[in-house]
């Protein structure tokens, strides 16, 4: 498989092309002057402290929730989700 992936493949959108309007926004960024070129030296981190992490436990979904998830299946057979066959072209 080719290592170069075009935006239509990356986006899983057939025939997708970069848009002129969006490219003009990106040009502004390319030409902008920044005093700080280190994107990891940031001050907007919304980190959670280790003491504050949520419990690593499995939470059982309610019966209603499970039923709605099944109702949302685009294709269903005998209570199972049906998907297209997986063939890597």
């Amino acid at each position: 498989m080719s290592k170069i992936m075009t935006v239509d493949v990356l986006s899983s959108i057939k025939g997708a092309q970069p848009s002129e309007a969006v490219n003009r926004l990106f040009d502004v960024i390319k030409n902008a002057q920044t005093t700080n070129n280190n994107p990891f030296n940031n001050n907007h981190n919304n980190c959670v402290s280790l003491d504050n992490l949520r419990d690593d436990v499995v939470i059982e979904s309610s019966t209603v929730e499970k039923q709605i998830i099944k109702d949302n299946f685009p294709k269903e057979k005998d209570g199972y989700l049906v998907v297209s066959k997986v063939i890597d072209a």
Partner: protein
Amino acid sequence: MKSQIQHIHQQLIDKTISCVDLVQEKLNLLKDNTHNTVNSLLTDVALEQAAKVDTKIANGETIGLLEGIPFGIKDVYMLQGTYATASSDLLKKYKSAYTATAIQKLLDAGAIPIVKENCDSFGHGSSSENTIFGAVKNAVNPELVGGGSSGGSAVNVAKDYTVFSIGGDTGGSVRQPAGYNNIYGLKPTYGRISRYGLMAYASSTDCVGPLAKSVEDIRIVLNAMSGKDTKDQTTYTSETIEESNILNTSDIKTVGYFKNFIESEAIDAQIKNDFLASIEKIKAKGIQVKELDFFKSDILVSTYYTLAMAETASNLSRLDGTNYGDRIDDKDLKESYAVTRSEKFSEETKRRIVGGNQVLSQGFSDEIYLKGLALRDAISENFEKDFEEVNIILSPVTPSTPPKIGDSLKDPLAMYLSDAYTVGFSLGQLPTLTVPQGTETGLQVTAAKNNDELVLKFANFLKDTI
């Protein structure tokens, strides 16, 4: 305007209206409305809840302030068992399996959701025209757009179809439609309200935001929804904002505004004049006003859209028609993904996904995405310095008045640039409120991070000043 929530609460207690009649009246208004604000009505559940409130009152039980108050929800929130379409073709039949934390808190307080509201698909737009439910029409002039992306929510509040509505603000999606329809709309500090159950657009700036007709109603709803939530680990613990704390405005000494916003060639002459006239009225009250330097509008807009597109490309990659949503089957799984996404996403959504994948791909990420992150840091630092000098930053909400329906879709770049005054505060994660005063599309009041109280306090000051 005084608090509608308090007014209706009193009427319910005094039994001058019944909750069922109140909810039925609002449902009728929504059903008959021609502004395209409704994606789905929650009639049965709403009337059932209203009847319970009436029974409680009849039995002499006390009811909470929000109990029985009908409200609207932008159609990007989960509410178990109801449609959550994001105004998109892909999710037009999708039902929420669970309920968003912010909405659950309102349900716990007894408020009654009556409508899922029209908006731009996945929040992708500034006019509420990017929707399968028809363009939202402005509350004041139906030939103009309702604003976006929370356009349906803003119009419903403005027309009194809902008492308040819950929108979502990523780059201005609560504040701009609030301004276009002459109501209040708050983007709280990022993390004050849980995003759990809000369909993700750009996770690093997505905020839950209330729209209402008074500062007091914004305060009540904000308090009800705020708080730490283990299901959204960016949330933090915040204190309740007391009514008495936002009435006395004597500690606001200095206000700043961004010189380049007002000197820009893009600003409408009337909005500029009205903004400067508002500044003079504030000065006349003895408040010191400072001009501040800020980044150029095109840098703000480009930084915001670079990051937002990168984040939305990642967030929406889960939507492929496999587990939920409309699926178009093709010869294999990959083709099914591609055909489904090509056919079921709108042009604007596809434009943003492609843009996001462009900036995240090798060879582009260094000169665009990573530079965008660095610019965001510089913008945040700029804000921190500003708030060492001033208590409040005041700005117009938009450079122009609302466009005619149809114009924004023709020119996406112009639509992106119309967000020039709102996106900077999103990148800074700052609390910002639109007040329906000062210019035709209102004013934005911004304070330092976690200082939502000061924003509401200054809004009260403006009520008596402008």
